[in-house]
């Protein structure tokens, strides 16, 4: 009886690890997708209202309940202005985040150009940044489809295989 329970436990544990690894790829994909959505909203608001960037970001993140960075920005009140806050988030988020170094650099890029030129320059910078984010999102989607599924199946079959060996 204990042997059977142990085998079931090992199988479930392996399947769980597979799903967790797969979930990391999914989370990266979702986070990048939310970032792209965020950039689109900021660009639209900037073009339409021409309001200050702090005001636009506050408005956009207040209506965003999906992405981690919006949640992080809302909770992080240590810095005085919104750009410092964004940079702090990009740096502090490094250890916790599921994003790659390249993804994080894209988050930092936003604070490097935002608010520093006229509207035309801002919109061009948005176009370039969005292209880069799209490319990373495409990689993340491929990773999720290929590696995510691979890990899930590998650990599932690994767990079952191990169980069979024990039996």
């Amino acid at each position: 009886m204990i042997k059977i329970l142990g085998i079931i436990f090992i199988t479930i544990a392996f399947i769980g690890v597979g799903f967790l690894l797969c979930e990391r790829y999914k989370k990266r994909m979702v986070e990048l997708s939310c970032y792209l959505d965020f950039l689109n909203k900021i660009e639209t608001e900037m073009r339409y209202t021409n309001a200050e960037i702090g005001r636009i970001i506050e408005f956009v993140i207040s209506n965003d309940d999906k992405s981690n960075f919006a949640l992080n920005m809302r909770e992080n009140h240590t810095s005085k202005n919104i750009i410092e806050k964004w940079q702090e988030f990009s740096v502090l988020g490094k250890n916790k985040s599921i994003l790659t170094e390249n993804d994080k650099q894209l988050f930092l890029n936003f604070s490097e150009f935002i608010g520093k030129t006229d509207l035309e320059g801002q919109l061009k910078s948005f176009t370039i940044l969005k292209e880069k984010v799209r490319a990373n999102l495409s990689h993340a989607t491929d990773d999720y489809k290929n590696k995510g599924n691979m890990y899930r199946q590998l650990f599932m079959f690994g767990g079952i295989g191990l169980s069979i060996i024990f039996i």
Partner: protein
Amino acid sequence: MNEQNNILAFNSAISSLSSRYHKILDMLDDIYKKQISEIRFRCNKPISVTICNNSYFLKSDGTLTENHTECDITTSRDDIDDIFKVLCDYSVYAFQHEIINGFITIKGGHRAGICGTAVIHRGEITNIRDITSINLRIARQIYGASDYIVNNLIKDDAQSLLIVGAPSTGKTTIIRDLARNLSSGSVGRYYKICIIDERKEIASEYRGVIQNDFGPCCDVLSGYPKAIGIEIATRSLSPNIIICDEIGSDNEATALKGSVNAGIKIIATVHAGSKTELMKKTGIVPLIKAGVFDKIIFLNKSDNPCVIDKITEAGVLFD
């Protein structure tokens, strides 16, 4: 009450500066805070403040000196850039139109004048780069600044007024208080006032909230070019009085004539130190000749703002 408001206005103006300068200026004694009308930052030079048209220099311990050689702090090139970024709220694009006109209006209606190198594209200024100095002018609402005008010129019936004065004589302060007085019913009736605030200097609109007290019957067209704002106000807001600052262009003159012909009174200001200077203003003289204004109020260039030098009938100006 005015003294307390003056200190609050100073504190609100310095809150828009980077933290280093905010701390030093905040150490100033209230006696200075309530009198300072300008704070000037110049690249590699001491910070100067203007009190009653005299310049004083700021020391790092938050005191003032008349001698610039006694100053122990100067504003570096990077400091100027930092101050500029903070004044723009890290959003240069949002202030682009104002920047190319040489100023930024910040929260509280304070105006920061900008000096730098003009970037010219196809004959027009498109930007200002390498900013060398910033002059922060503190906007103040002085209650009672227009009482004399209201009690003597508008008590029985509204009149069109042109307020003439050199820079820093209190023109904007007077029209701000006129708007409050007339909209609050202090002359026995509530006038419907419309302020055309192209530079957001009169009403100090910030994030959709008018920060000055204008009473219950005042509408503000904020950020509108004056000529367009005057036309819109005339067509759709049916005001008794339109108030605007620093008129002078041909478009504005045409729009003002249209409003006067529609039965609306005008209160406006113009930069000129004397009658002679006023008569050289090619955009204004035709307006006066056309009878747009009933009275001309000349302000005195004295140590105190809002001091009336003389009031004349517009018609007798050409006698």
